[in-house]
Structure formats: C-alpha cells, structure tokens
C-alpha cells in the first residue's frame, strides 16, 4: 500500500519541482498580500473594503533576512521520532521583494547555519516535514539557489 502525500496545512503551497510555490491571498480592493492566507477579510486598515481575496502564488525566490537553528528537539505538536537522536534543524526568514514581506521556513535538508549569510538568495522548494505509516507530510523548505541537495 503506497502512502499518501498530504500537505501539513492545506492550501499553503502547491506544485512540483520548478512549479512549486507558496500560496497566499491578495485583496482585490487594495492588492495587499497575505501569508498565511486570509480568506474572508483584508487586514489592511487603509483598505477601501469590499474586495474579495484571491489566491496568489508568492515569489519563488527571496533573500535571507536572518537564520537560526533548533539545537534541541522542539516540543509537540512538532513531530519527531523519540527513538532517533535529534539533528539540528535550520530555520530561515526570507524577504520576498515583490511582496515586501518576510516568510519563515525550514531550510532544505543538509543546509546548516554555516552555509548561510544574510542577504543570500534562496528559493522555496517542496519538502517533507515527517512521515508515518500512512502519510508523507509535505511542507515548504528554503534552499540557497544553485545548491544541489
């Protein structure tokens, strides 16, 4: 029996390979972009109002705003296998120029803080958060451009 691939949160990203994109929403009235997506109300207090929110893919590439890592196992609801030793997990905050916003994400497997500098270009790629008997839980990861993992 093959396992299903399920996004850790529905509707936050889509696509494979070079077509992979984070998905936000954009207000038809004021063009404000939201990630995580707002579905019902624009949060811009200067918005004239009345605009629906449409799904919009975010820029695939951005620049490292900052980065860090988790040297200790995070508590639940983060899922880890307590049988396995904890491997530090790198986190990157990425500035998207077109959207003028910063989006956090885990780094692609194998990317450590030693590989990163503030201002470096990274791109959103599909990744796996964790797996269990029935499901491969998918997510987004940030990976320095030009790096093959």
């Amino acid at each position, binding site marked *: 029996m093959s396992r299903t691939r399920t996004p*850790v*949160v529905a509707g936050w990203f889509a696509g494979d390979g070079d077509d992979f994109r984070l998905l936000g929403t954009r*207000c038809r009235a*004021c*063009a*404000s*972009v*939201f*990630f*995580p997506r707002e579905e019902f109300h624009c*949060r*811009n*207090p*200067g*918005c004239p109002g009345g605009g629906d929110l449409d799904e919009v893919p975010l820029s695939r590439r951005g620049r490292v*705003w*900052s*980065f*860090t*890592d*988790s*040297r*200790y196992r*995070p*508590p*639940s*609801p*983060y*899922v*880890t296998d307590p049988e396995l030793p904890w491997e530090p*997990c790198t*986190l990157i*905050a990425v500035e998207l120029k*077109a*959207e*003028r*916003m*910063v*989006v*956090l*994400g*885990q780094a692609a497997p194998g990317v450590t*803080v030693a590989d990163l*500098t*503030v*201002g470096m270009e990274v791109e959103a790629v599909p990744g796996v*958060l964790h797996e269990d008997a029935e499901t491969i839980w998918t*997510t987004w990861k940030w990976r320095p451009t030009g790096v093959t993992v």
Partner: protein
Amino acid sequence: MAADGGDGVSGEVAVLGVGMHPWGKWGRGFVEYGVAAARAALADAGLEWREIGSVVGADTVRGGYPGYVSGATFAKALGWQGARVTSVYAACASGAQAVNTARGQILSGLADVVLVVGADAAPKGFFRPAGGDRPDDPDWLRFRILGATNPTYFGLYARRRMAVHGDTLEDFAQVKVKNSALGTLNPYARYRKSVTAEEVAASAVVADPLRLLDICATSDGGAAVVLSSMGFARRHGAVDPVRIRAVSTVTPRYPTTVPDLPDIATDSAVAAEPAAATFRASIARAAYEEAGIGPEDLALAEVYDLSTALELQWYEDLGLCGEGEGAKLLRDGTTALGGRIPVNTSGGLASFGEAVPAQAIAQVCEVTWQLRGAAGDRQVERARVGITANQGLFGHGSAVIAVR
C-alpha cells in the same frame, strides 16, 4: 505637576506598596507565590487586605481554570472580602495590562485602592502551545510546521543584528555579565551568581547564534503592587509616593516589518507603507508621549531581556541611542550601574527567568524601589524617573513610566 487639579486630572496614581515572592523553581502552585507577593505588597503599603476595593489578577495559562480567573483566585485565597475583581491576559504583557486596568479604575473613580497580582508556576523546558489540533492558531502552527520555539525567534533577531549592526557574540555575552552581576545584589532573583563571558561562550548553543546563557529561563515567581488615587495616598499619609505617570499598551500598526512571535510571516508592505517606528519602538514612544518626558529624562530602565541580544535592541527602541548603536552603549558602560542610564538593575530576566504574568509587575517593583532610594547595593543615584518595557505575544506592547 503631581496632583494639581485633583486626582482625576493629574492622570497619576500612587504606588503605595510593592511585593514579590522570590523567583525560582520551587515546584509549588502559582496561587501560593501570588498570595505571598500580595501580602508583602499590602504590608509595604501599610494596608489591610480588607481595605482593598478592587483586585486585578494577571492570568497564567499554566494553572488550569484558576489561572484564567486569577483575580478571583487570589481574592479567594486572601479571603473573600467583597472587592471588585478583574482578570486580564496579554501574554508577557499581562502584568502591565493589569497595572493599567487598576490605574483606569482609580482614575475613573471606580476604586480608590487596587491590588494587582501576577504569579506563575513554569513548566520545565520550552514553553509549548496548548494541546489539540488547531490549524487556525498561529502559536500551534509555528510549532507544528517549523518547530519554532521562542529561542529560535530570539536567534533570528540576534543574527540579524550581527549582520546589520555588527554586534558580536562578545557583546551579547557582556549583557549577561552585566545583568548577572546585578542579579547577585537582588534577593528576589533566581540566579544570584556572577557569570563570565567565558562561561557564556562555553554554554551550549540553543538557537544559533545564541547560547544557553544568552537566553532567559522560565521560572516560578509572584509580584504584586498596591495602587491608589493621589487623594487616598495623601489621606493614608504617603507624602511623596512613587507615581505611575504613563502606561503604554499599544498594538502594532499594519504592516509589521519584523517577524514577531508567534507569526510565520510579517505583513506585506506592498499596499501600505510601514510606520517609521517599529512596533517595539512605538511602545516606548506612546509612554513618553503620555508622560510628557523623553528618554533623556530617564534615570533607569527595566527592559524585557528574553535574550541578551534583545536587551541591546531595547536600548534603541527606548531611544537611549540611535539605531544600531545599542552595543556601543553597552561597551562604554552607559547601561551599567553607575552609567548614565543603568538598564535592568534588578538583574533582568537573565537573573530571574521569566514568570510570565508576574514579570511586568516585577519590573514595576524594581523601578519603585529605585525611585524610593530603597534598592540597596543596586541603587541608582538620584533616580527620579524610570521606565519598564516589554512585548507580549500576539501584538501586546507595554511600558510603564514611574516618577517621584
């Protein structure tokens, strides 16, 4: 200035009493710490519990139902006496919100003398979200998707400072050295041992570039203040009490530009220009405006040093120096005891560890002792004006300005 035009017009309330239960990891319930702090504050004020017209509790989310109704929990434990009751929650800013609620009741004439209490019994290890699947809760999401603990956000801010302002790991370590030295002088601090820069550098990395001794622990503790109208203070014989002149409880302005706990992203600035001041800077600005003073008037500041690097950020956000100049202020001793503007004379969170709902009240306790000239070996000379500052999850700013 003080009471001109009567109690309501002055906008000031008197701090009649302050009290704390020592911070630590005592393994008992939060009610016990809160009651001990409340009794200490009442004794300090020279008041009987029965004379209190209103009690305001700063809630804890870690004490079950009694923690969500902390005002009533403390009132019952002290012995029901019919006082008006309020319970407030604003994450790390809960204590300051409780102070502000009490102040509002006094200035509006609803109460003459109010007891404010906050206490916490902290869990071991990282703070974690409440249980259950809640994909619409940003706090749940950041743990579920990213495993992003509080220290990882502190790590992001610290690394950003290093890249943009040239702060060094040595600068961060020196914040710990300064605060731990002050903590040795404070009987209520949990950690009362001097720490060297070498010890910071030798401690384990928790969230790069921050190490264990750069990041504040979680603690048990309790703090309380008794506030009153200026008229009540006069009738009670308090001739020259410490007075709270401003309490800032501002929210951010859209769009945010710094990824704040517990968010996974900032707002987008594509359709609205960000305000000139960041959220943290706007917290202090609102307090200065309300108090009619500026950073140059301060004798001391108590800031929320969740991490060593964050203390340097507060220097800039309080306007003690320009942007990017925080580390310089530390290096030249300006923020040490004896410097122009000592910061965290209490020893700060570095020496206390965070007892969430009590911490912002504890900041007010320290400023009160300083303004009374009762801070012992930690005393700042001729202290007349002090500020506290803090930022709670989910957009809660707080700052209190006290004068004497």
